[in-house]
C-alpha cells in the first residue's frame, strides 16, 4: 500500500526520536513485552495527533508530552489486544538494550532505586537525565518551575536513601 506524504513525513521525523521513545518505555515498563506494547501505544498516539501538530512547541517537547502522557495513563492491568498479524508485529520488534557499560553495580543500584519512585517522579528523573532545563520540564509536564526544583531535591534525597539502604 502506498504511503501518503503525511505518513512519510511522520516516519522521517520520528526516526531521530526512536531512542527517546524507547527510553520513556524503559522507564515505565519492566519487561520486553510491556516495552513493546507501550512503544506501540505511544507511536499510535503520536500518529493520531501528528496531523494537528502545528509546530507551536518544539517537536521534541510535543513528543515528550504525548509519550509521557501515554505512559502515565496507560492501563497496565488491562492489557490491550492489538489486532495485528504476527508478521506485522515483527516489524516493530524492539530489541532489549545491549550491555553498554551499565553493568556497574552502582549504576544498577541507581536504576533499581529509580524504579521505586512514583510515576511522576520517574518522569522528572527521566527529563533530568535527558539534560532538560527546569523550564523545559515545566513546558512538558505542566508542573511549576519552583515545584519541580523542590521535587527534584526530594527525589535526590529519596534515591540517596534507597541506594544507601542496599
Amino acid at each position: 500500500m502506498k504511503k501518503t506524504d503525511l505518513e512519510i513525513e511522520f516516519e522521517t521525523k520520528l526516526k531521530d526520536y526512536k531512542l527517546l521513545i524507547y527510553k520513556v518505555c524503559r522507564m515505565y515498563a519492566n519487561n520486553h513485552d510491556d516495552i513493546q506494547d507501550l512503544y506501540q501505544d505511544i507511536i499510535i498516539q503520536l500518529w493520531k495527533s501528528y496531523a494537528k501538530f502545528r509546530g507551536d512547541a518544539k517537536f521534541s517537547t510535543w513528543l515528550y508530552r504525548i509519550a509521557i502522557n501515554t505512559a502515565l495513563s496507560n492501563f497496565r492491568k488491562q492489557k490491550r489486544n492489538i489486532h495485528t498479524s504476527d508478521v506485522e508485529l515483527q516489524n516493530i520488534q524492539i530489541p532489549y538494550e545491549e550491555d553498554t557499560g551499565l553493568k556497574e553495580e552502582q549504576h544498577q543500584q541507581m536504576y533499581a532505586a529509580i524504579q521505586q519512585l512514583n510515576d511522576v517522579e520517574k518522569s522528572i528523573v527521566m527529563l533530568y537525565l535527558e539534560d532538560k532545563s527546569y523550564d523545559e520540564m515545566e513546558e512538558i509536564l505542566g508542573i511549576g518551575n519552583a515545584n519541580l526544583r523542590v521535587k527534584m531535591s526530594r527525589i535526590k534525597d529519596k534515591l540517596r536513601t534507597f541506594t544507601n539502604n542496599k
Partner: protein
Amino acid sequence: MELDNLKSSWNSVSVDLNRNEFDIVSATKKEMESPLNNLKTMSKRQLITLPLLLVFLAVMTGIVPDMKGQLLVWMAFIVLPLTTVYYYFNLKLISNLENNEGAVKNVFQRKVKQLISNNNLYLYLTRAALVTLVVATEFLIQNNHMDLIPGIEMIKTVMLPLRLLIYAGAIGVHYVLSRYAFNLYFGQYLKRLKKLLAEME
C-alpha cells in the same frame, strides 16, 4: 552514587531500533481494542439507534391513534432526543480522553474535569427523568387518569406509604446502578488520573 553520575550512562544507552524494518504507519493503522474503543462503538451505535427509534415512534404514533393518549409515548419523545444528546457528548468525551496533547498535568486536569462533568450531566438527566416519571405517575393516580400509563391500576392498589417506599427504592437503585456503571467504564481511569495529579502537587 548520585543521580548526576548516571547521566553519562543514560545518554550512552544505545538500542538497535533499526535492526528490523520498522514500519510505524502500518502498525498505527490497526484498530486497537481498548475499554475506550468499546465505549466509543457503543456510543456510535446508540447515536444511530436512538434517532431511528424516535422516527419509528413518530410514524407509529401517526398510524395508531391510541398511542397519542399514552403518557409514556410523549415522555419517550422527550427522553430519546435527550439521550441522543447525551451519547453525542459521551462520544466527544471519549475522543477528548484519547487526546494527549498539551502539558501532562494540564491534560490530566482537563480529563478529570470532563469525566466528572459528563458523569454529573448523566446523573442529573436520568434523575430528572426518573423523578418526572414518579411525579407524573402519582399525579395521574391522584387524579384518576388511569388510561395514560399502562399498568398504573396495579400501582394504585398499593398503599401510599408503600408506594412512596417503592419510588424511593427506584431512586436508590438508580443511584447505585449509575455509580456502578460509571465506575465500570471510567472509575479506574479517573482514580489513576487523580492519583497522578496528587503526585504532581
